[in-house]
């Protein structure tokens, strides 16, 4: 009887010790922390200075700057939406604006890192089926594995703080950018690429003059998704001592303070709306924007109009 039981449930008898191995990696990470420390300090200084810069600008001026950016990159309509949304954000509570700027700094840092890693990876994946086949399960893993699983090793490796927060955010937010960059490169009309080759373009010129520009709307959709996912990591990142709106929500949860939670939560949502509208605006195709150059639209277009030739 016992034999039959063990036959039907062989997994109970076999222990490959995967958890122990992972634990070993953790111990190794703790032992070698000093190696990581200098890199971490540099990154942390970068993030903190962005945070300080955002917080140093008077809120009303910052609001104006973001509205102007939205007008330039997207449209006047988006700029109005962004202006209203940011005003509501500021009115949520006296501290909301400062917290939002801290969160914005973390998200911007994470998205820049995602862009630097994701664009080359996605381009390679778009060019090579084999690389895509290797990358895909890795991206699936990054997107689906619960954040708490890698939270611990990351903290063991580099300690709590902004850098760890950015790293866990990047792990979660990177996949859509890679996937959509690959999709965008694959979606470029092959006959246009052929024409570029026929007129003597080198592989590098084909990439930078044809493939990346034509894939740009899809890549921007990826950036948009990456920003949204980065914002959704804000609360989890605050568990490893990242400040900002996420921290507000976390603390409210600990004290069962519904009011504080709503301020933090709404703040994150508004930030998401603002960043979403702006990045969607950038992703519009040339035709949708009436084929105007960047210096012919928005506030810069308004200022430069008298200096341009008709």
């Amino acid at each position, binding site marked *: 009887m016992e034999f039959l039981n063990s036959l039907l449930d062989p997994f109970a008898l076999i222990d490959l010790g995967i958890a122990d191995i992972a634990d070993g990696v953790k111990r190794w990470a703790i032992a070698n922390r000093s190696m990581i420390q200098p890199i971490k300090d540099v990154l942390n200084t970068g993030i903190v200075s962005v945070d300080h810069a955002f917080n140093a600008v008077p809120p009303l001026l910052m609001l104006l700057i973001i509205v102007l950016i939205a007008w330039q990159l997207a449209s006047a309509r988006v700029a109005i939406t962004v202006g209203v949304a940011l005003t509501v954000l500021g009115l949520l509570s006296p501290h909301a604006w400062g917290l939002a700027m801290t969160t914005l700094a973390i998200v911007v840092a994470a998205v820049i890192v995602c862009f630097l890693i994701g664009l080359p990876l996605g381009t390679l994946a778009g060019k090579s089926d084999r690389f895509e086949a290797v990358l895909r399960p890795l991206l699936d893993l990054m997107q689906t594995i619960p954040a708490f699983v890698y939270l611990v090793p990351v903290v063991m490796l580099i300690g709590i703080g902004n850098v760890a927060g950015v790293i866990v955010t990047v792990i979660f937010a990177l996949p859509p950018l890679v996937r959509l960059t690959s999709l965008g490169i694959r979606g470029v009309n092959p006959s246009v690429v052929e024409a570029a080759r026929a*007129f*003597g373009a*080198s592989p590098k010129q084909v990439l930078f003059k044809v493939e990346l520009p034509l894939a740009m709307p899809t890549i921007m959709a990826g950036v948009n998704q990456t920003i949204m996912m980065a914002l959704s990591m804000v609360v989890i990142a605050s568990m490893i001592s990242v400040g900002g709106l996420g921290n507000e929500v976390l603390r409210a949860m600990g004290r069962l303070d519904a009011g504080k939670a709503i301020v933090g939560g709404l703040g994150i949502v508004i930030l998401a709306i603002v960043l979403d509208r702006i990045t969607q605006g950038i992703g519009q195709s040339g035709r949708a924007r009436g084929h105007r150059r960047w210096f012919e639209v928005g506030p810069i277009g308004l200022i430069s109009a008298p200096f341009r030739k008709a």
Partner: protein
Amino acid sequence: MNTPSAEPVIRCEGIWKIFGKRADEAMRSVREHGLSKEEVRDRFDCVVGVRDASFDVARGEIFCIMGLSGSGKSTLIRHINRLIEPTAGKIMIEGRDVNALSNADLRQMRAEKIGMVFQSMALMPHRNVLQNVAFSQEVRGFDKAERRRSALRAIEAVDLKGWEAKYPDELSGGMQQRVGLARAIAADPAILLMDEPFSALDPLIRRQLQDQFMALSAEMHKTTLFITHDLDEAIRIGHRIAIMKDGELVQIGTPEDIVTAPADAYVADFVAGISKLGLVTAAKIMEPVAAWEQREGPAATASWSQARPEALLNELVDLSIASPDPIAVMQDGKAIGIVTKTALLRGVRGDLAPAAA
């Protein structure tokens, strides 16, 4: 029409293209055992795209390759600028072996020597007309003023002046293809590769563009390889025509040759519907004066309508309508042949058997 000089600009020798993972194996087998297309497909799971194609194109000549879709003509033309590598065979451009070029030399040749026009236009939607046309000089690193100058010259040549700042999606199909043509001639290349350039356009626009292309071509005297599935187009445009079927060039000749002496039933079938009026000359249908006199008595050629030997049927029909007499074919002031109404009617029908009755 320009008479092409003898020096070949493009020379293709025994080009084979077999698609598939086991192409080289299939190629060896074809060489040794002369496998057919079907045998290659069944035995090696490979597709024969081009089968032993050889031809020369002389400087200034317009060489048409005519074939139905799937006959391998688009594959063949892509060998000239090595967008496709041949499985076997050699392509020489002005005496240089294209497949022996380094990558850098190949890119230079593509940008400076060869212009290409595509059926799908393949314009870059994120660049305006000027930037599209200037592309080949841009990738060669010409300075902005110079490439703007050549691009504007090309745009003017295709009558698109004033449209430089527009984007492709703001233009009609015919205009887009004119941009495609301008892009091909912007760097003033010696060779033009035209891959069914006018097939996607409606008939009226197609005819307009054919005329425009022929005018440009006469003026610029470029060596042109022109792909089409439309025999009328091939006859209108080409100095010589090659008929392609299942990857093989079945006949190469002047339009008149192809129409009057088709090499096989396949070509004959193609040319059956083609009007001979603008193709066949008096020399092809005339009867020697002696033969005529033997049958009908002395010929009063001096009082009949007269035509040159290279006069087309069109012209002969006009002469024949004007007078009840036969037409005298004159060369150097002497009658060398006679075209009767019967012979003329036979000629119109494409029946060029020696006139007996």
